[in-house]
């Protein structure tokens, strides 16, 4: 499968249906690369014309801004907006809620106006439109699965239902944690915590959250964020449950359930 870049589309004088903003985790992190590939595979399979920025993509500046480094954020935003506007990008889909939030809510004030969609919402629309067709009795049918609301998709942008609808479409048995939706507990990675040690405390946030997820009796923890996926996987390992409980991105679950 060949994934085209914006530069390739532009060279042919064409525009893709949507730009897939991969994000740094999705590009470089080995675990998150699997999510990226799964999502790209779905888009390719159902014939969505998409492009990536490739080497032209840069960090949105989210971790810098949340840590307090507004200068660095503004530099990154300036360069990204130049690139995006240069290609005349209208619609962006991304598999990272941090990129999603910053592109959707924080770039417009800086001159970057796009329709930005999180990949779980995009998948839900593709399923609703009949473009994504799922196997009857796929791998996840009837499986006990819990869903972890990421902060920047949930509380940050009030998206709680779309990811759950995708899970329903996979016929899973969805079991909610006590702290879900608006009360969802953070995985511990946001606010640039991903890039530093936690402050002193009784336990780690990801241990607390993973324990809660494991206690539901679910065999899969469904996530929508590459950072949550990493944090929760570490938390599951800490509980020595990695043989019985898996952390998966919703895109990976859909990719495994596509009808032939």
């Amino acid at each position, binding site marked *: *499968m060949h*994934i085209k870049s914006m530069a390739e589309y532009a060279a042919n004088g064409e525009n893709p249906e949507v730009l897939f903003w*991969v994000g*740094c985790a*999705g*590009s*470089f992190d080995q675990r998150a690369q699997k999510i990226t*590939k799964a999502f*790209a*595979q779905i888009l390719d399979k159902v014939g969505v014309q998409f492009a*990536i920025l*490739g*080497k032209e993509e*840069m*960090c949105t*500046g989210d*971790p*810098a*801004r*949340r*840590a*307090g*480094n*507004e200068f*660095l954020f*503004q*530099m*990154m935003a*300036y360069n990204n907006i130049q690139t995006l506007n240069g290609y005349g990008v209208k619609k962006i889909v991304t598999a990272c809620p941090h990129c999603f*939030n910053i592109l959707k*809510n*924080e770039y417009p004030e*800086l001159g970057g106006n796009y329709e930005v969609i999180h990949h779980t919402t995009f998948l839900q629309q593709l399923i609703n439109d009949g473009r994504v067709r799922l196997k009857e009795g796929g791998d996840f049918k009837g499986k006990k699965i819990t869903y972890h609301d990421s*902060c920047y998709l949930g*509380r*940050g*942008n*009030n998206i709680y239902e779309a990811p759950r609808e995708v899970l329903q479409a996979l016929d899973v048995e969805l079991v909610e944690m006590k702290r879900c939706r608006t*009360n*969802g*507990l*953070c995985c*511990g*990675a*946001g*606010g*640039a915590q991903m*890039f*530093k*040690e*936690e*402050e*002193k*405390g*009784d336990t*780690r*946030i990801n*241990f*607390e*959250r993973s324990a809660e997820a494991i206690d539901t009796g679910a065999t899969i923890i469904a996530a929508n964020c590459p950072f949550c996926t990493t944090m929760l996987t570490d938390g599951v390992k800490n509980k020595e449950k990695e043989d019985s409980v898996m952390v998966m991105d919703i895109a990976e679950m859909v990719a495994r359930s596509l009808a032939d």
Partner: protein
Amino acid sequence: MHLIQQLLFILFAGAAIYFFAKKVGEIRRNIKLGRDEDRTDNSSARWRNVLLQAFGQKKMFKKPTPAILHFFVYAGFIIINIEILEIFLDGILGKHRMFVPMLGGLYSFLIGFFEILGALVLISCVVFLIRRNILHVKRLSQHELDGWPKTDANLILITEVILMSLFLTMNTADQVLQSRGVEHYVLTEPFWVTGHFTGMLSGMSTGALIALERSCWWLHIVGVFLFLNYLPYSKHLHIVLAFPNAYYTRLDPQGEMSNMKEIQNEVLYMMQPELAPAADPNQPQQHRFGAKDVMDLSWKNLMDAYSCTECGRCTASCPANITGKKLSPRKIMMDTRDRLEEVGKNIDKNKSFVDDGKSLVHDYITVEELRACTTCQACVEACPVGIEPLSIINQLRRYLVMEESNSPQEWNLMFGNVENNMAPWKFSPDERDRWAEEMASA
């Protein structure tokens, strides 16, 4: 005798209102020490928040038990205040229950309704005292409440119990006096609650009953005036500020962080120097980046601090606090108010603020607390009155990083990577689409 009582009452009421207004003026001035921020757009959405969050207490109902008890106290407070109007006018004009002839049968209905609310307020406050002092509900007994905050909470509850007891005792005595046909005590229908308790006082002499009824009347209204003046010094000020605070609360998605226009422009002029305006010598001095002290925060952050009633719903939902870190969003709000009060006193003393060598960061809120935040917005989501602790945390972090270059080594590495490799990790930008190449060859 009546005239002296009237004069005393007017004197007392006047003093109470004067001192309250004076303190309100000080709080208003303190809030206005904050930076400008426009929060007047989209008034229909703002009124909606006032109706749902402040009047309707929508977010309180995430925890139904305290929500219902709190609703009784809140409804009681608002509605029983209608009765205060009569008490107030009686006091000034030297009358007794002057609304009886005007309202007729409706009067007993209203008082009965107030009495039911009064009894519910009393019961609720007793339950609240039990939750705080016997059950030790976690969010109501955490360390940041040690000392004055716990005393403040108990004083408020005890005062309300006393005021409601006085109100109900007064009505009971009044009805016994009515039944004996004592002068001034106009006959009404039996009141719904206290009508059942007249037997308890029927053994008392008429003189003693009048003394009891008058004492309760005076203690109640004096208590109300004192309580009014206690409010501005207490966390209980939320009963007033919850309403404007809900109006001015942010309407943007919670995930959105506020933009720093001055830095946006600086970057723009660096990249496109032709857009930079000519240097203006009269240009006001650049403000410091982020917030070091309360004056660097916006007025809404400061109003938030005065609106906080220290309920701890934010702290109970904070992932950092839950896992034993020092950060507590409630403490951020309490510290902001304490520091603001200190700055206010400084201004009272010196006419304008004189540097006291202290600041909100370091002296009140430590770097360790600020570093523990995951920006998950649970504190903002949890607050029933639309307070945003996260907004303060973000501004203090901006100050630390941009003015003090105070960030952990790992963050400095991350900043360096973002700047040089366009990613927070040390990968070559050339590797960014490696996954795509892998898919092509697969």
